[in-house]
């Protein structure tokens, strides 16, 4: 049985010019201990589909699916309070902008202990001990002192480590990382990716990495889903995706990498493909 199963997910937003379909019939599944990468450009619906799975979209979004199941439990019919017991505990998410996603008014120690208080019902001393343990697990030096720091006193890389520690606080079965390294330098990116991969392997978590960086995909994923304009274009294991991409869009995306440049010009998606061609051979 898969950890997360999504079938035919559709997310629509009501706008002044009628409903806008951000996600159009995406199906996916993640197993425990597996790393899935979702790749796409901005507007491909990769973040929205995961936010829908987490139940974090605003009320203006209309979410429908044939199946939305996590760890054998149906998320669709669940009440909001039921769902809150799962989200943040068994299913956690980290976001792109680490500094923006931490609350600037509270110390990082308070923010990590809050999670433990709500979900684990631990006492004060136990919470603190667990927070220190988590901070050292994600490689923050002097965890005792660091608990008393505010987000603005830490660098972007350190803040992302704090975010990961918060997400891991309740030993989640599934971790969703939404562009975890986009705002960071390459050297820091490498550290954070290594950390995520190590923690994933140690704990046997399911991990979904949302990214637009093909390099990050190549370095982390077991399986890859390529999305474009809210639709799934291709799904393959990582090696076959890079070795023999099936869809024209994936091929175009790979050839737009500056690494693969031949001659003076980079081929762009618009040069190579029209909109209809992109969806040709798209899987459902």
């Amino acid at each position, binding site marked *: 049985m898969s950890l997360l199963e999504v079938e035919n997910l559709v997310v629509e937003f009501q706008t002044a010019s009628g409903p806008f379909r951000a996600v159009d019939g995406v199906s996916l599944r993640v197993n425990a201990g597996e790393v899935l990468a979702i790749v796409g*450009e*901005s507007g491909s619906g990769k973040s929205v589909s995961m936010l829908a799975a987490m139940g974090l979209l605003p009320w203006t979004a209309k979410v429908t699916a044939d199946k939305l199941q996590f760890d054998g439990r149906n998320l669709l019919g669940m009440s909001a309070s039921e769902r809150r017991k799962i989200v943040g505990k068994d299913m956690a998410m980290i976001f792109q902008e680490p500094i923006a996603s931490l609350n600037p008014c509270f110390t990082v120690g308070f923010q990590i202990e809050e999670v433990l208080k709500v979900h684990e019902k631990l006492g004060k001393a136990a919470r603190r001990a667990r927070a220190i343990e988590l901070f050292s697990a994600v490689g923050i030096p002097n965890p005792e002192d660091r608990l008393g720091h505010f987000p603005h006193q830490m660098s*972007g890389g350190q803040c992302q480590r704090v975010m990961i520690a918060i997400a891991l606080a309740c030993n989640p079965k599934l971790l969703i990382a939404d562009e975890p390294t986009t705002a960071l*330098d*390459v*050297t*820091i*990116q*490498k550290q954070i*990716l290594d950390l995520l991969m190590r923690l994933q*392997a140690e704990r046997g978590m399911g991990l979904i990495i949302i990214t*637009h*960086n*093909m*390099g*990050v*995909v*190549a*370095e982390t994923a077991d399986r890859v889903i390529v999305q474009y304009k809210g639709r799934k274009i291709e799904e393959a294991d*990582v*090696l076959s995706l*890079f*070795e023999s991409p099936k869809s024209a869009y994936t091929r*175009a*995306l*790979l050839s*737009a*990498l*500056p*690494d693969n*440049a031949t001659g*003076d*010009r*980079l*081929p*762009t*998606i*618009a040069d190579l493909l029209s909109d209809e061609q992109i969806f040709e051979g798209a899987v459902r």
Partner: protein
Amino acid sequence: MTHVLETRNLVRDYHIAGGIFRKGRTIHAVKGISLAVDQGKTLAIVGESGCGKSTLARMITMIDAPTAGDMLIDGQKVDIAKEGLTPEMRRKVQIVFQNPYGTLNPRKKIGDILMEPLVINTSMKRDERQDRAMAMLKKVGLDEKHFGRYPHMFSGGQRQRVAIARALMLSPRLLVLDEPVSALDLSVQAQVLNLLADLQDEFQLTYVFISHDLSVVRYIADDVMVMYYGEAVEYGTREEVFSDPKHAYTKTLFSATPRADVESIKARLARKNAA
């Protein structure tokens, strides 16, 4: 031949004022950078955040004055701290910033944004300004109909095109590009990089290209400088730097860059299965 841009031991310090409980401090953001770029060439400056590359860009663009050292543009010495900045100098160097969402005034139409450098730095008539702006719009791959629109009606890639068009309105000799594609999607990034290459060929532009993405640098640069804590730890032609990095930081940087080729994926999967 004189270089379009030459700097000799350029230094920039920032002083942080002290208070009652704190002593003042000096931060050495740029510690003596010397470089030279010839016409039609691209110098890429690479480094992590906080290494002083944007401070260097601001000095080259004559936004900030250097604390010490000389800067020569077209062989002519520039010192904005003493002599101020003349419109002639401003016309020679222009800059494109990283975030196209923050650098276009949301209350101005694209046409006005493009014409503003001409209003400030030249005495051109209105008709002529308008013709120039229209021509430039087409040059960067936009359309005449975009002239009367506002920035919020454009995508990130289109906005970056507008920012590039604005920088080119004064026909500069030197264009400083401060992470121009790092906020853009992969395919849009390819379009903007192509545009920059085309414009360089057409106008014989000189670029100073600041980036932390080594794959982009390898694609676009003639010369590469690697900065680390305000110092240039590596400076040479692209081939030299990429084939034989000397400094430990450059090596770290190369090994940290994710690789998207089949061989490295195979190696990674093999490691994973072995573990």
